């Protein structure tokens, strides 16, 4: 059955959530992935939105993390102070899905600027909650399409800490969370060893050369190199018919 690289990425992210109880989620592909996980590998998964909504049961696919459809019928709505204080910093959230304009081999993320901070080539949105999420949430899954523009040797700006310079640096600073554990892309899946990214699986039909060509540093490889199971008919059906009927996230 045909599927797009983005669909493969979403399905892979959903599978990675197997057994997870609480996930801190934004809109777009991460939101689709979490909802797919609930309908497949993680029925007990609870989604917590940065807007302060817990146990949402939206009657439509939310268009922003602040969509009113997330509020009506939710289990609880809390202030931003409670969300970041009680839930995130309070250690109640297991996993967060993060992305960035740039990521380096240690899973550090840049969502602030391209170029110099004082005179940016491109001014990006900035941290939002990402910096404290990266520090406090139990485990971070990075979910973004693979490209040489994004997977860089050196970040222009470190917005949200991954493993910083490598093994042990997070714990030395006393960070509550364990940091990035997986990187889920449209071409492959990566893990971390000693704080550095390691290529673990290629998506069906993707070559090692393609992947290396889309990464700004010499990738460490796990051996044996695995291949991702393609999306099942059921995964694609839920994705296309229930979660994204307009096909917004299929491209």
């Amino acid at each position, binding site marked *: 059955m045909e599927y797009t690289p983005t669909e493969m990425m979403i399905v892979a992210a959903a599978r990675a959530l197997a057994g997870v109880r609480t996930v801190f989620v934004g809109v777009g592909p991460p939101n689709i992935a979490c909802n797919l996980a609930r309908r497949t590998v993680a029925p007990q998964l609870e989604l917590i939105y940065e807007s302060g909504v817990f146990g949402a049961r939206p009657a439509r696919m939310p268009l922003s993390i602040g969509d009113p459809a997330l509020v009506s019928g939710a289990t609880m709505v809390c202030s931003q*102070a409670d969300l970041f204080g009680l839930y995130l910093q309070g250690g109640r959230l297991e996993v967060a899905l993060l992305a960035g304009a740039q990521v380096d081999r240690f899973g550090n993320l840049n969502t602030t600027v391209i170029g110099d901070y004082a005179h940016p080539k491109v001014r990006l949105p*900035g941290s939002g909650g990402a*910096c404290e999420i990266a520090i406090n949430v139990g485990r971070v899954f990075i979910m973004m399409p693979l490209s040489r523009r994004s997977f860089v040797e050196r970040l222009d700006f470190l917005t949200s800490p991954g493993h910083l310079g490598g093994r042990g640096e997070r714990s030395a600073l*006393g960070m509550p969370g364990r940091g990035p554990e997986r990187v889920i892309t449209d071409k492959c899946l990566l893990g971390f060893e000693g704080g550095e990214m390691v290529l673990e699986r290629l998506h069906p039909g993707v070559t090692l050369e393609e992947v290396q060509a889309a990464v700004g540093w010499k990738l460490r490889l796990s051996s044996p190199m695995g291949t991702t199971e393609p999306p099942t008919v059921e995964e694609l059906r839920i994705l296309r018919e229930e979660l994204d009927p307009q096909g917004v996230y299929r491209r």
Partner: protein
Amino acid sequence: MKLTSMREAIATYVHDGDTVAIEGFTACISFAAGHEIIRQGRRDLVLCRMTPDLIYDQMVAAGCARKLVFSYLGNPGVGSLHAIRRAVERGIPAPLELEEYSHFGMVGRYLAGAWGLPFFPLRSYLGSDLPRVNPHIRFVKSPYGGEEIATVPPLRPDVAILHAQRADVHGNTQLWGLLGVQKEAAFAARHVIVVVEEIVDEEVIRADPNRTLIPGLIVDAVVCEPYGAHPSYVQGYYDRDNAFYLRWDEISRDEAGTWGWLEEWVYGLPDRKAYVEKMGAEVWERLRPGEAWSGAVNYGAYR
């Protein structure tokens, strides 16, 4: 004053050079107040908001601001805020100073301001470049074991402008749905303007005291401005106008388009009432949600 018009409220409590916080996380953003500030030609404002959103994009385009204090600079679910990017990247219409935090950092700044604390401690910024570009982000040693934790300083806006569903004439304000930092911003500010969809009888407020988020005690002005948060939304009253958030992405891509829109929808109109009429009944019809009632609880009559 208390119950007054938006024109009066802005004229009285927003001055050139003031530090202003129009808050509301996706919901209850007082576009009505922002547009009136543009109409009254305020200059050199320090604009504070976790998510500047379209309202500050418009105010920056109109030349009201000299500085932005924020934590997420985007058009939620759409992309960039083009007017703000023009100001930051190319100094158009004027250079714009940025003071940048994370969401939790902004929440902490409002909390410190509202709680009268000299600083607020939070587990963020470790290993990040943010403290390098923002000297207000510092670190303190815990007196219990000496661990280092980040701190942010109090934020005390000259005025906070909060939109909500309803208030009484004394300014006792009730809000439901997303709460954002509305309460913390109100208590942190020296003056508070509350903008509501409806003015209700004091008895409606007193029937459910746990629902009251902002007490009249700290409110200087109450403005009744139906649809005053459009294109953002008010839970139970109208939906977010996502179509407009998408359109703004095109409108704001160049100065001409941005100015054209400001001319037509802000400068060209006397007040919010005219905006609501010009927008037209079918828009409000399109944005009207169905009903979903909370149910009532019994507080008990104790005699």
